[in-house]
């Protein structure tokens, strides 16, 4: 590629690029600057007090971890198997394959608030209420709770896991498949023993990206399980829970005393951002490690 000499258009597009870099650093810098001051061990390990103007965020951290854990258990197997189908079994021209691909790309585009409506209408009102009726329970699963919030997030994150895993599976060179099949392994044995282990960093990347996205989403869980304020921790799937992202929203918009809440709010955002930031960074690193592995080999 010829080296670009300095010219007005390159300077203009360069300035646009710098603007984006500046925006990213302004957001991260602002939140770091005002967020780290109030951080302490106590802040991370105690519940909120005095109408959220004092105390910590432990229930929100605990709830978020539990939420994404359940979500991951649900979404990773389904996502990985779907990716295996798309990468190893599907014939690109078959109508089923095209429908699955269409569904994945459209699922990725459904607004997150619509997932919230779906979670409430399907999981809570239909499945949950149905379970309560079938099992003769009092109101248990027919209400917003941890389980349904996690399932709603799992559906939302399906495309993330599928796309990332499929990309990783496709990067495993064809030679590996041929070699394994030539040695007499069946197709499934090849996938399970050769392809999947090779693509493991990619599978992990998909899971990490899903966790990161799941930890930050608020709109889908507002009506499916997240609680406004709940100092005690959830101990059953049918309990409500506090969530970091929702806690940020609540404190930012509904605090009785904005100035008193501000340091806590900033530190909560700092914690949420650090978690998603570190997860994304490790996903980026893993992905490039996988790319390098097959480029060299």
């Amino acid at each position: 590629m010829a080296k670009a000499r300095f010219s007005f258009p390159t300077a203009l597009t360069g300035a646009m690029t710098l603007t984006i870099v500046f925006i990213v650093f302004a957001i991260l810098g602002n939140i770091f600057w005002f967020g780290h001051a109030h951080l302490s061990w106590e802040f991370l390990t105690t519940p909120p007090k005095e109408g959220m103007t004092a105390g910590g965020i432990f229930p929100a951290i605990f709830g978020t971890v539990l939420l994404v854990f359940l979500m991951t258990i649900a979404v990773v197997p389904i996502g990985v198997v779907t990716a295996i189908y798309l990468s190893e079994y599907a014939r690109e021209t078959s109508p089923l394959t095209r429908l699955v691909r269409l569904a994945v790309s459209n699922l990725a585009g459904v607004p997150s608030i619509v997932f919230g409506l779906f979670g409430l209408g399907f999981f809570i009102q239909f499945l949950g209420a149905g379970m309560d009726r079938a099992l003769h329970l009092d109101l248990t699963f027919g209400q917003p709770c941890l389980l349904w919030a996690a399932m709603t997030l799992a559906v939302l994150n399906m495309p993330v896991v599928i796309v990332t895993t499929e990309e990783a599976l496709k990067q495993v060179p064809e030679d590996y498949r041929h070699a394994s099949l030539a040695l007499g392994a069946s197709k499934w044995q090849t996938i399970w023993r050769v392809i999947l282990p090779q693509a493991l960093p990619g599978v992990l990347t998909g899971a990490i990206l899903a966790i990161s996205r799941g930890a930050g989403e608020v709109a889908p869980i507002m009506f499916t399980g997240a609680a406004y304020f709940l100092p005690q921790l959830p101990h059953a799937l049918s309990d409500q829970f506090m969530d970091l992202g929702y806690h940020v929203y609540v404190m930012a918009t509904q605090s009785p005393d904005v100035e008193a809440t501000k340091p806590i709010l900033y530190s909560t955002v700092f914690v949420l951002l650090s978690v998603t930031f570190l997860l994304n960074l490790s996903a980026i690193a893993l992905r490039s490690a996988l790319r390098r592995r097959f480029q060299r080999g």
Partner: protein
Amino acid sequence: MKRKSRAAEKAIELAIALVAMSTIASILLIFLFVMREALPIFTSLKVQKEASLARFFTTTIWQPVSDWPRYGFAPLILGTFKITFVALLFAIPLGVGAALFTSEFAPRRAKEFLKPIVEILAGIPSVVLGFFALIVLASFLQRVLGYGSRLNTFNAGIALGFAVIPTIFTISEDALTAVPKSLREASLALGADPWQTAWRVTLPAAQTGILASILLGLGRAIGETMIVLMASGNASLFTASVFDSTRSLSATIAAELGEVVFGDPHYNTLYFIGTLLFTMTFFVNLGASLMVDRLKRKLAGKL
């Protein structure tokens, strides 16, 4: 033995295909169950007394909680449109410009730095962007531009732009990078300078991908909730100014669903808005994915 393992292989393949179909089931279930709760608007006379299609589109007032509830969609649709417009006006030049710079002019080391930076922006949760817009950006913009209400369309649009930039940048950059080197070399050999090559040759060659990126950005902007909910002020005004407070379709659902009575016309109406959002984004994304398909086939030399 052999026959048994062949049967097992078949069974595994079938099971895998069934799991893959859960994606199709999911999208259908989403549509069905969101629409199901909106259905009384068409079937129940009792609901229609308050909320019907005619009422949605003939009044310009959205006032669902009052003795005389009024469900005019006009301010919400206008609000969504205004915020999306500002967001795209901000994000398209920045996203496409930066993609052009990154793929055509940036040295390799800068490229390795720029792409992760944008990925980090894409990874910032929308509630954090909403928080930033509410606390920091709103005050900053008000000081610079000196308008009246701190939380307004413009503020929400810019913050929404932050969320849309990564989509537009990433896909445009991919499309630009995928343009064959031979095209650029031919242009340079004919005496065009690098900028002329980028502007007249590379950019047009990647136009399908860039258009797809803009469509995906549009889909994201229409449906984004938390940023708009926190940054726009949420007053359902029916005005043209971008410096007025405003309320979008998505933010309306988020703000009101928590307080609505179950099975009430208001509840059905919120689900109807959800159906509307689902349908709009569905077609926008369908358009984008058809374009990406076209691009892939074109690059594979089949078109």
